[in-house]
């Protein structure tokens, strides 16, 4: 089922979330669930866990709790990232357990800086093979990630950092709402939402609601046209415990609690079993 690619353009397909994930995400694929602290597609991540996906290459600038959960449930074998902390709280303890002790499975790391990953998303959306930036100067990251290389400017001779464009098999983001034609409005911290949709081979957008009139507040609002999106699934509250600007706030208290829940393998698994399911 997974590996599906729509055969027509011009229409986003509306599906229930479980069907949308089953159609788009398969074992062994590269999958990006993005959203820079805001609009993190937790509901889609939980559905991937319930469907028991394995051996995924997970891509995200800030893995956040959603990847802590997916890694702790054994969905991933590889992680492409630039900041792997619980923002404002500390560690991602399941991710650390995977890296430090190989539990529940070893996790290979492909580590970048934010500036490089943001540029790599832009390059992917621009259909370019790589991104360049004035980056990684004097940083040891280039020594541990062979994907960080150098290009020379043909005009000035300046050496610049180069990283491959991000072109995941599947790109998943959350957004405020879509209209009936699948045009999607993203508001607030827009992060790399648009880039992920355009860079991915197949895109899945979860939304709080579908409305008759998108009511974009400005001509310059961030709207992703429906004809550029593959699948849309309605998932009210789908970004919680992160947030959807204008709908609900970030559950900062839960981000603090997660530090305790994730500190132990058993409490983690019990929490996932109770709140997400699919662990049996």
């Amino acid at each position: 089922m997974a590996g599906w690619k729509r055969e027509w353009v011009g229409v986003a397909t509306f599906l229930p979330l479980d069907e949308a994930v089953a159609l788009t995400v398969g074992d062994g694929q590269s999958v990006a669930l993005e959203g820079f602290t805001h609009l993190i597609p937790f509901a889609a991540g939980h559905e991937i866990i319930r469907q028991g996906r394995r051996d995924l290459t997970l891509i995200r600038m800030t893995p956040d709790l959603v990847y802590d959960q997916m890694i702790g449930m054994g969905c991933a074998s590889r992680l492409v990232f630039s900041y792997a902390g619980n923002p404002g709280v500390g560690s991602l303890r399941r991710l650390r357990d995977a890296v430090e002790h190989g539990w529940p499975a070893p996790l290979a790391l492909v580590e970048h800086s934010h500036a490089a990953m943001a540029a790599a998303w832009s390059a992917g959306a621009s259909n370019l093979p790589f991104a360049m930036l004035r980056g990684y100067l004097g940083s040891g990251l280039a020594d541990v990630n062979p994907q960080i290389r150098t290009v020379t400017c043909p005009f000035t001779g300046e050496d610049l950092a180069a990283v491959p464009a991000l072109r995941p098999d599947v790109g998943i983001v959350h957004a405020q709402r879509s209209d009936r034609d699948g045009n999607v409005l993203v508001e607030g911290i827009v992060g790399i939402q648009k880039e992920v949709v355009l860079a991915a081979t197949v895109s899945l957008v979860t939304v709080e609601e579908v409305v008759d009139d998108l009511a974009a507040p400005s001509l310059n609002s961030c709207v992703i046209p429906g004809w550029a999106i593959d699948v849309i699934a309605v998932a009210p509250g789908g970004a919680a415990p992160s947030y959807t600007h204008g709908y609900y706030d970030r559950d900062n208290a839960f981000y603090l609690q997660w530090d305790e829940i994730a500190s132990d393998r058993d409490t983690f698994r019990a929490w996932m079993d109770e709140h997400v399911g699919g662990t049996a």
Partner: protein
Amino acid sequence: MNDETHASPRVSTGHPAWTREELMTIAASRALGDDDVCFVGIGPPSAACNLARLTHSPGLTLIYESGTLGTSPDVLPLSIGDGILADASITTVSVPEMFAYWLQGGHITIGFLAAAQMDRYGNLNTTVIGGYDAPKVRLPGGGGAPEIATACQQTYVIMRHAQRSMVERLDFATSLGHGPTGVERRQSGVTTAGPTRVFTDLCIMRPGPEDNELQVTSLHPGVGRDDVVEATGWPIRFAGQVDETPPPTNEELSVLRDLHRRSDEAHAG
């Protein structure tokens, strides 16, 4: 972060009303001005920047890497992308625009960094303790720091002073200070100044004019030279003239504590 700040030991004599951690934040806030455009990290940098904005420098421009330009939040955000940062900004841009146009574009005067380890030349480690492939502790990683460290006109470092954090040799070099021997930054053609000030809970350090090695320029009240020597993993130098950091004013202290109290309440849910 906040809990740790509040749990830190109080200075035993003479200054019962404030902690050294508070003075670390306050000292950093005093080094900011109305004309600065500051790239702000979460934790003490965010507290210092907002304290400056709420006291002596209302014109200070704060930028968080989530894309919020010119933001003035009522409470300290828990994360770099809390909604309040967007609500309180003059505009919110995409993350690629943030890093390419605003940071790499050269619009930031001060980048504020913290780290798990720093060496005598202000090079920073936020990646791993131990070896990279089999780390003892896997830290969160670089995030925005590697480019903040080189693209901002100068950087300030704020972190607690301890043997395990002020180290002779970094386990991993995440972000460039003045380079492994203090000269590499200049030699590699990086034109920005790099770390110009380091604020700890014991002192303020600045790079020496000759070789860029950090030296103590100001001791916090009640801190002796021995305290700094003991808490530093390399033989720390002292500048020819070492000042005493002025203690917190009542205004600085009350604004900072009010900010932390409101923030803790806001994040408790």
